């Protein structure tokens, strides 16, 4: 069941993105930025956590989960440290993703050339 939910939710997010991309002048960069903001907004009142409970990894794969992870780490730290905690915990959960992307990009750019 969770596989079907994953498929439907992740597919739906991509579908919304594609419909926005085709019907407006916004570029892919605009859409990913909007989706991150939407993700962090949804997690402000713990809505995104409920979605993750129901659809599993289908909600963690889209870029909306990036915004969710940012604010989730920030709020977890903020419960101990107050307002400074928001800045201290901001990258707690997304650190792995950003580090992986940077390291892999660096390694692969060393070995591969641009092909046009």
């Amino acid at each position, binding site marked *: 069941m969770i596989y079907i939910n994953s498929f439907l939710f992740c*597919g739906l997010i991509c*579908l919304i*993105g594609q419909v926005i991309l085709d019907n407006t002048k916004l570029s892919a960069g605009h*859409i990913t930025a909007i989706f*991150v903001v939407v993700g962090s907004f949804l997690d402000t009142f713990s809505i995104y956590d409920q979605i993750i409970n129901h659809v*599993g990894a289908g909600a963690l794969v889209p870029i909306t989960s990036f915004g969710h992870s940012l604010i989730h780490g920030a709020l977890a730290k903020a419960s101990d440290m107050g307002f400074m905690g928001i800045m201290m915990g901001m990258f707690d959960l997304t650190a792995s993703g950003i580090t992986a992307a940077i390291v892999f990009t660096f390694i692969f750019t060393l070995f591969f050339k641009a092909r046009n």
Partner: protein
Amino acid sequence: MLLLGDMMEKKKYEEIVNKHKPTETRGQNAFIAFVTGGIIGVIGQVLTECYASWFDISSKDASTFMLVTLIFLASLFTALGFFDKWVTFCKCGLIIPITGFAHSMTSAGIEYKKEGPIFGLGSNIFKLAGSVILYGVVSAWFFGILRLIIMGG
């Protein structure tokens, strides 16, 4: 008179083309994005459960492993050169998932590599992915403070 008629014909033709062509490709694009996005979601779920059982870790840690795996694959396929073709075909189906984030970084890195390690690779690696980080952090900071004020944590 003939010229006017010709132009009218052309206008009519363009009207008909515009009426039929975009809607069809839009529907097709949306369908492809839906299916590919869904498949990536299912792959993520399968990987999460595999990692959770193989390494005997919680599903939350396994989901981090899963994200790193997806980033690795997207980065590798971009470097090998065939991920770009997939992205032009699937569009948002691959851009919206975390694969798009890795793809944008690796493609920017490879493209600007020739301009040197500092001003090429170093300053352009976040050229496309930077907007995601900037607006993510700003919105998370703003909404975090909002929640602290409204709900107290």
